[in-house]
């Protein structure tokens, strides 16, 4: 790749957004690219909306992506995709896990959950890929690998040898979960 690719990964605390960011960094390192990643820890993590930004390419300075500068928005949750839609370039790709997580503001009746979410996603994004990552992960017997299923789908958009992605998974995931996560990656990469 001869230009910098900007990726924003968003979701709800606990969904594995942070591990996905780490995985992308490892891929860049193995592929001999430069990379920078930004995320914020702290109060926002407690049940909050989480964002991790990764930029990879020949030379990267800023760890943050300007608004409207994201090439690929990976969202682990539908409303989070809408919340961060303004980050995406006009011709950028939105990859959305078809999962809905209602926050306390909705469960207590203080806020409304948006109607017809799939339609809103379709209206908002020109290039939308709705991926049933949670269903796929549950079929594989572990909901926790939904994030790697999303990564497999993302890898299809990047000009990087899939073996490098697999290597990054082997290096980063706990040994007993490596096989499961490789299977998850291949399932969506080959879809």
């Amino acid at each position: 790749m001869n230009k910098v690719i900007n990726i924003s990964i968003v979701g709800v605390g606990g969904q594995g957004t942070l591990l996905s960011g780490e995985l992308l960094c490892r891929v860049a390192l193995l592929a001999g690219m430069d990379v920078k990643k930004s995320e914020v820890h702290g109060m926002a993590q407690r049940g909050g909306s989480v964002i991790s930004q990764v930029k990879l390419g020949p030379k990267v300075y800023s760890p943050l992506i300007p608004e409207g500068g994201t090439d690929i928005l990976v969202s682990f949750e539908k409303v989070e995709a809408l919340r961060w839609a303004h980050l995406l370039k006009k011709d950028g790709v939105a990859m959305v896990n078809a999962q809905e997580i209602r926050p306390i503001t909705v469960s207590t009746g203080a806020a409304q959950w948006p109607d017809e979410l799939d339609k809103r996603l379709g209206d908002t994004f020109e290039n939308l890929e709705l991926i049933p990552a949670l269903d796929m992960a549950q079929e594989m017997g572990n909901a926790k690998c939904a994030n790697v299923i999303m990564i497999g789908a993302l890898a299809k958009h990047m000009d990087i040898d899939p073996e490098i992605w697999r290597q990054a998974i082997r290096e980063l995931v706990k040994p007993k979960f490596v096989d499961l996560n490789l299977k998850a990656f291949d399932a969506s990469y080959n879809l």
Partner: protein
Amino acid sequence: MANKKILSGNEAIAAGAYVGGVSVASAYPGTPSTEILENLVKYPDVYCEWAVNEKVGMEVAIGASFAGKRSMTTMKHVGLNVAMDPLMTFAYVGANGGFVVVSADDPGMHSSQNEQDNRYIAKFAKIPMLEPSDSQDAYDMMIEAFKLSEKFSIPVMLRTTTRVSHSSGIVELGDFKRDAENGKKYEKNIPYTVPVPLYSRPMHVRIEQKLIDLEAYSETSKFNRLEKGTDGVGIITSGIAYAYVREAFPNASILHLGMTNPLPKKMIADFAASVDRLYIAEEDEPFIEEQVRAMGIKVCDPETSLRIGELNPDRINLMAAEVYGTEKPAKAEPITGLPGRPPVLCPGCSHRGVFYALSRLKCMVTGDIGCYSLGAFPPLSAMDTIICMGASVGNAHGLAKAGYEGKVAAVLGDSTFFHSGITGLLNIVYNKGCSTVIVLDNRITAMTGHQDNPGTGKTLMGEETIATRVEAIAAGLGVHRVRTVDPYNLDETYNIIKEELESDEPSVVVSCRPCVLGARLKVVRKFAVESDKCKKCKMCLKIGCPAIEVADDGTTRINPVLCVGCGMCEQVCKFGAIKETGI
């Protein structure tokens, strides 16, 4: 193959400290600095500890420097306020073994109560300062900082920010060879280590000379770099702002300052003379800009303000559009009206029982720094003030002495009590106060990610130690009324706090339950709403538990995934609709 790793800024600071030869590190946790010691403790031959507060952490590191060892202390920006006293005078005394204080500032206040710019403290204390722009800088500067400290016999500040500390990038680690041999040891030299007026007056003279020498060093520092451009625009920048500027101004000349105290004035004057238009792009306060203007150098004043809040590529891109007279970058507006995800006290959080009691008692609550700041938000809304670590205790006493007619409770956590609540409590006892101090004792420093503290019985190095009890400290200070409550028992908690508020002598209520997240206790029961008994009164929502939801028909239900079985909701339901279930 080159020795490259992906490291966050904080991981890089720890790696650099290890290679730089640090032997002793003492710190109090605070976002965004906490991960530095959590990573440093993984390396061999480095003694690491959680100090009870930043002042003590700095004093411990100073002691190690006296001994000739390389030492460091780390803290968040407001932590340095606590440690200012030793820093200001240690600067006069000077370091023996290399000494580095890491100040991790939080522009944008991701997890802080203000966004003070601690670069002014380096200038105020008259000490050299290094300001990394990324993880590579953080690693290289940390190694250099110890050498610099020993070369000039002066404490050095490494000033990072949230965005540098919590961003990751590739770091070239070099041979990763640890350099802890500085050949120094303690040698008695009273005129140089005892700042009584007789000796501190010459110390002041010496530090002024060191600053002159350090400025000459700054002119040649490898961290002050000139990147020559072609379009006549010149920008002086530092820290994370450099990264945004480099991308937004590809053709401009950039003076990237990594050593920002003392500033390399000649380098700056030469740079200013070499460009047609000079700008300064720095995050937080105009620290460099004020000094450059004071040199009589003309600095352009763009309308795009870089002050207040965190910088980002958008703000710097706007500035670039203004500098070049190009169109402002088009931006899509965020979609509005989406439900937010505010931070909330966790399901089963032991703080909830106390805040529920306080909201029923309708008393004024002076609050403090920790997860329990969330008690200020609805539906609990049971916190009236926050200032700084430990302030709840002194504030409550002050309200009482000022004749405030209502009841006042001070609320603070166990780690905050150890940090700086003890002195305030002693002050209440001594000055015949009558305040009620509630210590939310969840046996962990939760907010910053579950660090050990004097109450947990474990050190940062993983050793067993004495677990200090809040009750014993309170009794030792002379508090006669010390009560312990189980915050999961709502009536008991309410009644005891009420009794203590009505008492006319000082009292301490210790609310004792481990942090649900920190203790990782096995969930042994859960609760559910029997919907036919639910009268839709929504009383159970008053405790603000994220596991309790409202169904479409208006009855409430408990999310079985989130419920940890604390049972507080069962106690507030007047109709017996909430029942214990198995797991």
